[in-house]
């Protein structure tokens, strides 16, 4: 019963945090620099790992699908399968998982440490809302960065599939055929649906990260617990939301 109460409290405080943060939106011009810094941290520093991960996801997808489709005589459809899977599902989900592990954990650790050391209380006594200074720039940054990371991740993933199709002799699909098949069935709507997912995932991850960090009490041990909690909640939220968003968008 206590667990449920704790979970509901965490959910409520995260919603309240989002509301309070967006109430500070008129101050957005004043936090442009902070938003840009957070955008750099969330986007630029995550990009290398996104490219590596999505390249190999595209490659493995092509390899697995290639061998199966070849047996059915439908290897010309590999491009469609890889393209659609990455654009609609794997691209946004994998970028979100990376964001939760890399950026969400760092944000929770930073904010939890600020909370424990009294920096957040100092902001409150200075009448500077922590939501405006610490949360809103991060939420805005992630909303700006997620579509860019997802589009780059998608393109790299498609190329990963193309490299495997051309390089693995048992599949033997030329890049021209691969990309033609990819273009034939993949629509702008599929890409946009993926980007909508990415935006929702990114916002949720950052909200969980900030909320968990700012709710931390105690010492260094609690900071560690907060980081673990933030990442676990984010992963659960990504996969749960993925189902409902997919259902809503189809």
């Amino acid at each position, binding site marked *: 019963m206590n667990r449920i109460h704790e979970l509901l409290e965490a959910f409520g405080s995260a919603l309240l945090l989002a509301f309070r943060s967006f109430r500070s939106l008129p101050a957005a011009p004043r936090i442009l620099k902070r938003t840009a810094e957070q955008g750099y941290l969330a986007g630029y520093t995550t990009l290398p790992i996104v490219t590596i991960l999505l390249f190999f996801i595209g490659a493995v997808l092509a390899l697995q699908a290639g061998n199966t489709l070849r047996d059915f005589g439908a290897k010309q459809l590999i491009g469609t399968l890889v393209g659609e899977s990455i654009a609609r599902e794997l691209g946004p989900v994998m970028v979100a998982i990376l964001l939760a592990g890399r950026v969400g954990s760092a944000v929770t650790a930073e904010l939890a440490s*600020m909370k424990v*050391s009294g920096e957040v*209380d100092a902001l*409150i*006594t200075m009448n500077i*809302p922590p939501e405006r200074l610490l949360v809103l720039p991060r939420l805005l940054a992630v909303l700006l960065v997620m579509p860019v990371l997802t589009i780059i991740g998608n393109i790299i993933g498609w190329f990963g599939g193309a490299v495997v199709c051309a390089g693995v002799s048992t599949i033997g699909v030329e890049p021209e055929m691969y990309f033609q098949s990819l273009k034939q069935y993949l629509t702008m709507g599929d890409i946009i649906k993926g980007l909508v997912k990415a935006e929702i995932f990114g916002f949720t991850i950052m909200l969980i990260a900030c909320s968990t960090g700012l709710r931390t009490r105690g010492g260094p041990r609690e900071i560690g617990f907060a980081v673990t909690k933030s990442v676990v909640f984010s992963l659960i939220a990504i996969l749960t939301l993925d189902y409902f968003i997919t259902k809503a968008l189809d």
Partner: protein
Amino acid sequence: MAKTPPPSLIRDDRNPVKVEVSGLNKSYGSQVVLTDVTFDVKPGEIFGIMGPSGSGKSVLLRHIAGLESSTSGTVTISGEDPRKPETRDRFAVAMVFQSGALFNSLSVYDNLALYPLEHRLCPKSEIRDRVMRALRILSIESAVDKLPAELSGGMKKRVAIARALVMEPQLILYDEPTSELDPVMGATIAEIIATLKEQFTVTTIVVTHDRDLALTIADRIAVIHQGRLRAVLPPAELRRSTDGVINDFLNPKIDVRNPRFKQLEATHE
């Protein structure tokens, strides 16, 4: 062209405030921290809150700073609720935290400039003047570009006080300002607190278990023991108090030959 003088750190239209604590009770679950605490702090005085560790001093100060909500009872700053942002905005309540609570990712300059920048109190050039003046008052101009991690404990406390000063406060709250400092640095901080009160006529509340600090600088001292207020007296009267708890706190007796010590000795042998 004549250079404009640096702006005052305390605006003329700002007067020290009165703080009233009435029937304050605070519990965390079943743990009672404060019981029926009532006192008032007059405008412009230095009010010490003294008591042993864990007696509820810091919790009381957090209530005055508006960082905690009471279980029952009220705290007001010139009649207003300190938890309301408007109250903080109106009276500029500054708090010097025990740890300093400096923003670790910001330089000393940025720490001090944050408040006027965020509240758009004046143009950037004036903010620079104001920050540099606060650093000069505390004799820490050399630390302006340093990060908090590069400062000693005493320097951190001074930066925290300078940051409070930049806010042009009407009320400054100090939480254990001399803890973790050597006696010389502790004396320096005590002098700074007294000087700031003289120069800027702010109401000052100092929470401390440092007997010498409280008895030296405070106009009146409240003694808290196990969450209850034992007395509110001027230092001279407090010294003459016949209350056993206050006497024990002010004049602790160290007896190295007491039975407990002998027991430890025996165990070692």
